């Protein structure tokens, strides 16, 4: 074989062509054969025929050849690509090893940004995107009136209304509900040793069937078991493990609850967390069937949850509910209560009820981490650009040696992909820690938080984010480098040349953009922080600090209501006297209800001698309290508190709050007036300040207080105001209670402040996260500013040296560098303020008592940015002023 001469090597100049190759190869074969035959004396035409005959089916062979050739070509291209990529990766690792500082900083920045993104994604995924943890959860609806000022009391229905609704509705497979007014530690587990508190929820018999929850052991309740009393219970999985040490034969055993034996019929699966869905932050230990017959006269107590028939829509359910609503009685015994629920039955998807309120906060959070990613990307882009300039020669040499532009861009992209993959992996680790921590924040009242985890979707998101980030920060430097003029770069010997300056303009632009984004984050975080502070400043109507509460057990059983009332009075008086005597205790009182709990209302008292049209009078929130409670809570009162003399036989007395007084007797003094409850006169002996009910942020409605000696309380919360830190009293209070009543369980001694903290915890949660992101954004922006200024100082070292040689002072040089820094910062802030104004408008619904134009926030943001910018400019400025003119001049 002779090698192809140079002039014949251009046959495939425009890339490989397998088809032509095959044809050429075969025609060579035939030609050679013909030549041979002719040499043996054949006639040319006969020789050709003979050659073709001996060859066989030329066409078929040719086709096979073309197919195989194309396949080989494809494989070869793929192989080349892989080889090149592997080469790129190896090269990347070599380059990064040469500059470990750069690699470490980039990976860290990326890990923080990507980690934050993963963590927030998994929160968003859990709360917003993923369906609720029930089978066919899209069929589940929550049925409640449109949101109004009054809370749970108007979001619930009476037993009669529930049964009628269930009977008459046509779109549901099942309608169920639970008793809405269960409080934590409402049961005592008295089986063995010291009584222990437990939290129980009463549910309608088919509650779990409608949700689609299967028992882990035993059976569920049946619908019949919500009529008449059945001493049975289902255990939550966690309680079964904790309290019964995962006893595998627990089903069928009887345990003692509140002194009565109750049979355990089953254990619920671990995957079912009632609190996470319906009562964020609460842990529920066991479930008992709700006795609808017994609760019939109790008013609105059950929530409604329905499972739609397959194919039925929420809109159909609404139509159906509007059809049924006018036929519902509040209580069938009272015909005038027919139609009370008209317009008050609105089905919404259960998911919306559980997480709908959080949607906006979550989206805001998502945008915040997205911004962080953008800032990190811009920052990295900037760092890479600086490096790219330093490496311009390397690329120019590679280009001159034949590397195509695409190949160089690919190499740069590979570098960013390697960086962002490392950042992603580290970020995933960070996110895992963050998520693990979040999932155990029982004190944050957010739904579904406990089911937070890293799943396949989150991993997919991680990969997506990492690749996207790599593209984001790798493409710009790559294109700029590849777009540059190779010759110019090769000639460009010093950092003072034109290419460098052009890059610097791009980098300055990037920094301005970065500062602007940080600005937006800072303003948003600032506004949320201001809102949070405002929320904390809200006058709750009581003093939460230095007060604590503990649930008190008592036994007031007696034959008649009056006997019960006086017995209860004596017990409470004893308890209060005993606890008051403890050192450090300032005031003690008992109430059956604490502020910021679920709402409850009894009836509609009417001010004596006044006529109101129905619906004008509020159903006030009810407290049943003892003397001393008002003082122990730190509620301000006008008139007098209840006394122990306000007993079952004396005249009926009540306290009302200022809001109620304004409704009943506008412009008059309510103290001394009389409120009628049916035929019963209630003397208003005092007016107290409005106490926030349900939420810190919401308003307050009417409230009424009854003395525990004249009304039946639904439990007793002992409230203690002390001059000491509340926790120090816990042991002595419990001991005192035990002395009076050996059955007193070791209930939690809860500082009142924790109730408030819990109520504001979602806001605190979001505020802290956004603030952390804003801090991160500020840090990254500072890094960006530092990078650009520092680089420009290095580049201008010669010019600075000359200026200093000509007499410029160090201070002069410093001022000039700082001025450059501040120019960048100001440009960024100007752009950022514009962006922030727009963004602030978007998040205005998340703010509390804070305008989206809040001037102090914007000023604070500006100040913070300027400080950080000045600081990040100061370091290079110091370096610039330290330049030794002679050295610099000599060095070039």
């Amino acid at each position: 074989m002779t090698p192809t001469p140079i002039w014949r090597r251009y046959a495939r100049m425009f890339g490989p062509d397998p088809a032509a190759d095959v044809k050429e190869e075969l025609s060579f074969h035939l030609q050679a054969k013909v030549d041979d035959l002719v040499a043996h004396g054949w006639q040319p035409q006969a020789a050709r025929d003979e050659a073709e005959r001996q060859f066989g089916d030329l066409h078929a062979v040719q086709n096979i050849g073309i197919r195989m050739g194309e396949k080989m070509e494809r494989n070869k291209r793929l192989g080349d690509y892989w080889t090149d990529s592997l080469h790129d990766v190896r090269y990347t690792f070599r380059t990064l090893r040469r500059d470990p500082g750069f690699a470490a900083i980039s990976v860290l920045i990326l890990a923080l940004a990507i980690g934050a993104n993963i963590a927030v994604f998994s929160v968003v995924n859990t709360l917003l995107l993923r369906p609720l943890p029930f089978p066919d959860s899209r069929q589940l609806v929550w049925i409640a009136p449109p949101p109004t000022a009054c809370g749970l009391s108007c979001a619930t229905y009476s037993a009669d209304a529930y049964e009628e609704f269930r009977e008459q509705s046509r779109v549901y497979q099942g309608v169920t509900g639970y008793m809405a007014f269960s409080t934590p530690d409402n049961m005592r587990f008295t089986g063995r040793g010291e009584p222990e508190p437990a939290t129980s929820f009463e549910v309608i018999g088919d509650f779990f069937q409608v949700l689609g929850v299967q028992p882990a052991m035993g059976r569920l309740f049946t619908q019949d078991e919500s009529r008449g009393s059945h001493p049975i219970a289902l255990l939550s999985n966690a309680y079964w493990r904790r309290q019964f040490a995962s006893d595998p034969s627990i089903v069928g055993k009887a345990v003692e609850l509140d002194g009565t034996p109750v049979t355990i019929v089953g254990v619920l699966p671990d995957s079912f967390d009632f609190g996470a869905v319906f009562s964020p932050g609460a842990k529920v230990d066991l479930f008992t069937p709700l006795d609808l017959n017994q609760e019939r006269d109790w008013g609105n107590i059950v929530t409604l949850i329905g499972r739609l028939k397959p194919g039925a829509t929420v809109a159909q359910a609404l139509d159906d509910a509007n059809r049924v609503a006018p036929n519902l009685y509040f209580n069938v015994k009272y015909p005038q209560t027919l139609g009370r629920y008209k317009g008050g039955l609105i089905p919404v998807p259960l998911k919306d009820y559980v997480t709908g309120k959080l949607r906006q906060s979550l989206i805001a959070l998502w945008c915040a981490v997205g911004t962080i990613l953008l800032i990190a990307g811009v920052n990295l882009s900037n760092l890479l650009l600086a490096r790219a300039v330093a490496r311009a020669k390397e690329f120019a040499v590679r280009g001159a040696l034949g590397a195509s532009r695409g190949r160089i861009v690919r190499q740069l992209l590979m570098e960013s992909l390697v960086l962002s993959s490392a950042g992603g992996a580290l970020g995933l680790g960070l996110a895992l820690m963050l998520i693990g921590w979040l999932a155990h924040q029982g004190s944050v009242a957010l739904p579904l938080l406990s089911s937070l985890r890293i799943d396949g979707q989150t991993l997919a998101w991680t990969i997506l984010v990492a690749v996207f980030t790599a593209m984001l920060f790798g493409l710009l430097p790559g294109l700029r480098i590849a777009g540059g003029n190779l010759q110019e770069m090769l000639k460009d010997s010093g950092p003072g040349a034109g290419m460098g300056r052009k890059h610097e303009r791009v980098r300055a632009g990037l920094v301005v953009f970065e500062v602007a984004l940080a600005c937006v984050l800072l303003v948003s975080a600032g506004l949320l922080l201001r809102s949070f502070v405002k929320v904390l400043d809200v006058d709750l109507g009581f003093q939460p600090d230095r007060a604590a509460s503990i649930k008190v057990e008592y036994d007031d059983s007696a034959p008649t209501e009056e006997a019960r009332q006086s017995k209860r009075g004596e017990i409470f008086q004893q308890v209060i006297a005993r606890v008051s005597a403890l050192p450090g205790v300032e005031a003690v009182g008992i109430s059956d209800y604490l502020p910021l709990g679920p709402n409850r209302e009894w009836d509609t008292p009417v001010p004596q001698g006044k006529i109101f049209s129905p619906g004008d009078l509020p159903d006030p929130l009810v407290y049943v309290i003892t003397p001393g409670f008002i003082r122990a809570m730190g509620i301000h009162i006008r008139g007098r508190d209840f006394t122990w003399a306000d007993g079952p036989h004396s005249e009926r007395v009540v306290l009302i709050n200022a809001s109620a007084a304004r409704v009943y007797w506008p412009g008059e003094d309510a103290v001394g007036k009389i409120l009628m409850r049916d035929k019963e006169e209630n003397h208003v002996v005092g007016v107290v300040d409005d106490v926030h009910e349900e939420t810190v942020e919401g308003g307050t409605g009417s409230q009424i207080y009854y003395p525990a000696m004249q009304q039946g309380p639904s439990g007793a919360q002992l409230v203690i105001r002390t001059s000491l830190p509340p926790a120090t009293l816990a042991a002595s209070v419990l001991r005192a209670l035990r002395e009076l009543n050996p059955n007193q369980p070791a209930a939690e001694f809860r500082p009142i402040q924790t109730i408030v903290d819990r109520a504001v915890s979602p806001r605190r949660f979001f505020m802290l996260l956004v603030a952390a992101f804003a801090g991160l954004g500020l840090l990254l922006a500072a890094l960006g500013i530092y990078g650009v200024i520092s680089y420009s100082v290095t580049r201008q070292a010669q010019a600075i040296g000359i200026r200093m040689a000509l007499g410029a002072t160090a201070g002069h040089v410093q001022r000039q560098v700082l001025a450059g820094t501040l120019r960048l910062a100001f440009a960024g802030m100007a752009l950022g303020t514009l962006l922030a104004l727009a963004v602030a408008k978007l998040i205005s619904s998340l703010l509390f008592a804070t305008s989206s134009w809040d001037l102090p926030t914007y000023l604070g943001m500006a100040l913070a940015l300027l400080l950080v910018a000045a600081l990040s400019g100061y370091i290079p400025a110091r370096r610039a002023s330290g330049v030794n003119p002679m050295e610099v001049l000599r060095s070039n």
Partner: protein
Amino acid sequence: MDIAKLEFLRGTLDVLILKALVWGPLHGYAVTKFIRRLSDDVLLLEEGTLYPALWRLESKGLVDAEWGLSENNRRAKFYRLTAVGRRQLRHEVRTWEAYAAAVAKVLGATQPLVPEKIA
């Protein structure tokens, strides 16, 4: 040629091609000539069948192809044994020899099998 013979050929063609290339690169036509000559025209009927076999060997990496000039200055595709191909050839030859010896031994038998004593 009957079908059985053709099938037989397909299996052995690969190893014949590899053998043809042992002494240096050849183009397809030279490979056909080599096989035809040495087998006295027995083993190769249609010359076209050689090419798919060559290309298959190329895609498996047993041979390498390169364009060059033939003895009368025409552009021709030359095939060369790769290291893998050379190894493969050695292996095939060994297998073939063992196989042929076994077949020859059986066919050369002169008397029926005497039942062995069970030890």
